[in-house]
């Protein structure tokens, strides 16, 4: 049979601070054998806790503590770390110097190649020389004729229009056809309005 825990639950929820609700709990506990027993046990437990005697202090308490403190002071804060920590320290010390040195070296190298492109590889230099020789100098080009584009004869225009008309005749555009060459947005509901 399940035990009633109303009193213990109320304690757990700190209902003792709410006098009205706490009275309800105590009223219930006065009628409930489980809760009455819990109250008795709780009171007894708190009494035992409060009466807990101090432990028997070991004879060498002061000496042991002073020894531990002194030993920690002698090891300058490294006591208790063991031989493994000492070994790791020994290995890590040169590494701590090597890592910043390597970073510094890399930085110097990067700065050097960025600011001195002439000192790059032979392949890069050859490519640069070839590109330089193939460069078209604008100053060497013949001067452009500003009237050259305006000289289109009437016969040329006529011929162009005749060819355009012939093209339109041979490629008639269907009335509902969609120009697929151009992008368009088509909505889902658009199809509803189209004739079948």
């Amino acid at each position, binding site marked *: 049979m399940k035990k009633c825990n109303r009193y*213990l639950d109320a304690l757990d929820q700190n209902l003792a601070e709410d006098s009205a609700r706490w009275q309800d709990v105590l009223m219930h506990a006065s009628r409930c054998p489980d809760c009455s027993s819990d109250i008795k046990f709780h009171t007894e437990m708190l009494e035992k806790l409060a009466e807990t005697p101090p432990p028997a202090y070991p004879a060498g308490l002061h000496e042991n503590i002073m020894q531990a403190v002194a030993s920690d002071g002698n090891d300058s804060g490294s006591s208790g770390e063991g031989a493994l920590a000492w070994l790791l320290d020994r290995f890590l010390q040169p590494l701590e110097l090597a890592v910043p040195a390597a970073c510094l070296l890399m930085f110097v190298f990067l700065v050097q190649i960025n600011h001195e492109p002439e000192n790059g590889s032979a392949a890069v230099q050859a490519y640069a020389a070839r590109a330089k020789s193939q460069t078209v100098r604008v100053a060497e080009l013949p001067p452009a004729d500003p009237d050259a584009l305006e000289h289109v004869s009437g016969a040329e225009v006529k011929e162009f229009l005749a060819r355009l008309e012939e093209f339109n005749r041979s490629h008639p555009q269907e009335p509902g056809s969609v120009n697929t060459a151009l992008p368009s947005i088509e909505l889902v509901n658009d199809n509803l309005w189209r004739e079948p």
Partner: protein
Amino acid sequence: MLADIRRGDQKAAAKLVSAYEKTVYRICYRFFADENEAMDAAQEVFIKIFRAIGRFEGRSSLKTWIYRIAANTCISLAEKRKREKEGLLQTMMHWWESFTAASPEDEVLDNETRQLNQQAVAEKVARLPETYRMPVILKDIEGLPLEKISEVLEIPVGTVKSRINRGRRILQESLQAYVYGRLE
């Protein structure tokens, strides 16, 4: 005295240890219910105190500060021990306990003689989860007020109250199970 300790005066350091060694050992013993563990913890507490005394600003009293170091040290040592125990050793211990467990007749006799004594209470307190153990010790055994516990543990008063209530609940259920032989 603090200035002397900071200057490295050994006599002043010994004086501080003498003044607080029993308080620190008592807290540690109540937390672990084991002499060796309490001694280790007390030594660790004083090592931490002397390492950090240069940074003690006096915002709280020296006693509160020492209580705080003791509480934190006990909790962290307990967590460390728990991590170490979990694993193979724990499995082997359970296996061994299953062989050495008392017979049902012995258990019945034992249950009849069980009662709510100091030893049982102290052992069950030391088995409470770390979160609830220190608030219960400081409130119900050491008799510190809630505000002081809040200052020592650096948690709000409301949290202290709820941890004490929860800890007491766990303790009561554990003790009832022990006394009435309900679960154990």
